[in-house]
């Protein structure tokens, strides 16, 4: 287990803030009125030549694809391609991640742990649900569940097998306990056969689960 001092009361902002707006709130009729209001505004701005529909479509595509787990995926892809960047990432992950323009951490330090043929890393927060959300988005429900938080420590191989990841007996499993101060991100192994892929193509292969350490990356 990684050693750390954990805040007992968890009374500070170290998980993603709960968002009350995830469920729809309006009836079909109310929604229709809102649809009309936006359409009118959009048409006015298009008629004035201030925006184009192509620009608007592009913005939506960028934001739907570019935030959340993709941020972490870009960090991983860059580290696979750029040995100097990887060294900086393993030495000072907070600074190396900021280099790519990802901010939003609230004073926590990022630590990146590298998987290899001999070592497999997996991340948990045993006391609550500390999570590197600027690079991974919001945590999945299972990450916050008491069974994962306790069992991954007691029986990491068994829990990983339930995720479909069976590790050889010769592979050392390291479990990292996130805290208010330190957030871990797993640097997965680059799969074979990806030598010709671009950074964007590599990033598209990287999954959230691999960066938590409950999966490997495959083609």
């Amino acid at each position: 287990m990684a050693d750390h001092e954990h805040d007992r009361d968890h009374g500070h902002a170290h998980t993603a803030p709960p968002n009350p707006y995830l469920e729809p709130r309006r009836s079909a009729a109310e929604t229709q009125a809102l649809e009309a209001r936006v359409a009118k505004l959009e048409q006015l701005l298009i008629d004035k030549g201030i925006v184009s529909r192509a620009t608007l479509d592009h913005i939506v595509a960028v934001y739907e694809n570019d935030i959340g787990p993709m941020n972490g995926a870009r960090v991983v892809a860059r580290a696979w391609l750029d040995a100097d960047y990887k060294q900086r990432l393993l030495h000072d992950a907070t600074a190396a991640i900021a280099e790519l323009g990802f901010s939003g951490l609230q004073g926590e330090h990022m630590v990146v742990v590298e998987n290899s043929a001999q070592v497999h890393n997996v991340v948990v927060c045993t006391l609550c649900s500390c999570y590197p959300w600027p690079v991974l988005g919001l945590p999945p429900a299972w990450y916050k569940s008491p069974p994962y938080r306790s069992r991954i420590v007691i029986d990491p191989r068994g829990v990983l097998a339930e995720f479909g990841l069976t590790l050889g007996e010769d592979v050392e499993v390291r479990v990292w306990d996130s805290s208010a101060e330190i957030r871990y991100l797993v640097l997965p192994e680059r799969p074979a056969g990806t030598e010709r892929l671009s950074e964007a193509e590599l990033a598209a292969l990287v999954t959230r689960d691999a960066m938590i350490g409950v999966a490997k990356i495959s083609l």
Partner: protein
Amino acid sequence: MTDRLAKPAVAEMPGIEGLPRKSGELVFHGDWERRAFALAVALCEQGHYDWDEFRAYLIASIAAAGESPAAPNPAAPGYYEHWLASLERTLTAKGLLAP
């Protein structure tokens, strides 16, 4: 230095005004929400206003509804209703809706 396209100022607003996300992905309940989102971001990226100007309206609109993460109120306006009202206020303040 960065090839990231999304602006952190937009994607990582820290408080209740932050974009609703599930597993890191944006949550839109209808196409009007998606379009209102795109309008506000596009006009900012084109230099019509600073993101903080829009965000200030958004924070004020949510605050006026009296809602907080600790005290959610499903009967209050949804996130993108605040967003749309804030967009209209910003555009009016900048004279972009004048004929």
